[in-house]
């Protein structure tokens, strides 16, 4: 039998194609409009805030000059001592803020955890509170506390505390929601109250995961406590701001290096601790 001529083969392929689902989802007028609007917004925004080619060309040597003026970092012993004290203060802010935040997160998470909360359906109130704490950026918290309790480390500690509640409150609650239900139900059948169940069954089950989250919170706290000084809430950031304000770029480079080292060290330590509990 002779092979079918090319024309006939093509038309058979056409027919087969018709029976298949379309290759591309058809484009509705609404989604086309959305696409055009989206593209317009992007183009206008680029025009407003993206660096122009001229700025790019000027900026690179500008940045290069800045780095040049930062070198070599200032290693004067007096300056290093002052920085050392600021570093200790930064750690204190991070540590105390995290510990207070973790301790406060425990009851808040318990009250907000679905299916576990002693206040039943009203748990959403505490869920909302934790979300609120989380969505306000830490620098905004810092501004609020600097305005209310004044300049200095206390404002920083309170900021880290709020940040930690936003973070740990959420992850503690998730751990509690994921905890084994059977032991809790068994205790409830025995007649234990919610608090006994929380301490007797929920706490041991969720502890490893909560320690894990707390270590992440501490790591995060060290990173954010470094910048809190920019708005006057204590710690090493204050020195950084002073250095830039007074054009002491060699001091600034020392501080940036030190910040880099402590954040790195902190991540190393918390990683090691986390591996321990695993």
């Amino acid at each position, binding site marked *: 039998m002779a092979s079918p001529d090319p024309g006939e083969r093509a038309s058979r392929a056409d027919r087969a194609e018709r029976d298949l689902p379309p290759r591309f989802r058809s484009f509705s007028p609404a989604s086309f409009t959305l696409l055009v609007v989206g593209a317009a917004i992007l183009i206008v925004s680029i025009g407003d805030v993206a660096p122009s080619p001229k700025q790019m060309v000027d900026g690179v040597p500008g940045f290069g000059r800045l780095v040049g003026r930062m070198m070599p970092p200032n290693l004067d012993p007096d300056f290093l001592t002052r920085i050392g004290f600021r570093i200790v203060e930064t750690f204190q802010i991070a540590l105390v803020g995290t510990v207070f935040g973790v301790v406060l997160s425990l009851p808040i998470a318990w009250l907000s955890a679905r299916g576990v909360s002693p206040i039943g359906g009203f748990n959403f109130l505490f869920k909302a509170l934790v979300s609120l704490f989380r969505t306000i950026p830490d620098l905004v918290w810092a501004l609020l506390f600097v305005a209310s309790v004044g300049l200095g480390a206390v404002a920083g500690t309170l900021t880290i505390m709020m940040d930690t509640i936003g973070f740990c409150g959420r992850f503690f609650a998730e751990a509690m929601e994921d905890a*084994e239900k*059977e*032991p809790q*139900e*068994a*205790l409830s*059948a*025995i*007649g*234990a*109250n919610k*608090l*006994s169940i929380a*301490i*007797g*069954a929920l706490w*041991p*089950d969720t*502890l490893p995961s909560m320690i894990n989250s707390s270590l992440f919170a501490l790591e995060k706290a060290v990173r954010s406590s470094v910048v809190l000084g920019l708005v006057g809430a204590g710690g090493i950031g204050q020195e950084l701001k002073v250095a830039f304000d007074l054009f002491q770029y060699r001091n600034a480079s020392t501080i940036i290096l030190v910040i880099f080292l402590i954040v790195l060290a902190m991540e190393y330590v918390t990683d090691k601790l986390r591996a321990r509990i695993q």
Partner: protein
Amino acid sequence: MFDVKVRNAVPPAGDRREEALIRVSGLRKSYDGASMILDGVNLAVSPGERVALIGSNGCGKSTLLKCLIGLHDISGGTVRTLGETFDRAPNAGQRASLRQKTGFVFQKHCLVRRRTVLSNVVHGLLGGKGSWRGFSHATALPEWRQRARDALSEVSLADKAMSRAEALSGGQQQRVAIARALVRRPQLLIADEPAASLDPVSGRKVMDLFVRLCRQHGITLVFTSHDMDHTAEFATRVVALKRGGVLFDKPAGAVQSADLEATFDGVA
């Protein structure tokens, strides 16, 4: 009929109306208000009996157990357990009294895994006086610790008191759960498939232990099981559930294989 009388050590519950420890009449239970899981269950259990509930998966055995002691609200009928009569749900006082006099053993995973065996047994006393410090053996009342230790000796696990619950074998964990149920000296023990997750030897040991302790302390036992050898050997009476009602209710020795076939046959 004659056969039944000879084999049955305990007279049929109907003859001992006043003494029944549990009496369920016309019990109905629905979770969603539409489909009745239990639809007119009648059951009476006398003190000292060991009743096995059987039936296919999802027929409502666990549901019935929970209704007996007011862990679930009921949708119709009345339940009288240990002298507390209720329809819908027991009131707070009744609930407390029922909990005080009843012990439960569930199928699996009912222990707090990361806590010691002793703490888990101490948990069995929660709900009574001194509960605020009863979440761990380390903080519990001295009397609670003693009672927990004694209960552990009864299940031959005194030497494991300080092990973590998760470090024990499945059979040992189930014995801890029995100790936790026994520690409050219950009159009634409710066990939902206590041997289901255990190998044949451990399962048999656990059932043996149940029977021995129930005899020794005069505890009435109501349990569910899918193991027909267990029901024949360890129960005094077998109650089969099917389509929301009681299919048969016989002394364990009188159950024929035809009865079992009818129980598990053709369930939608």
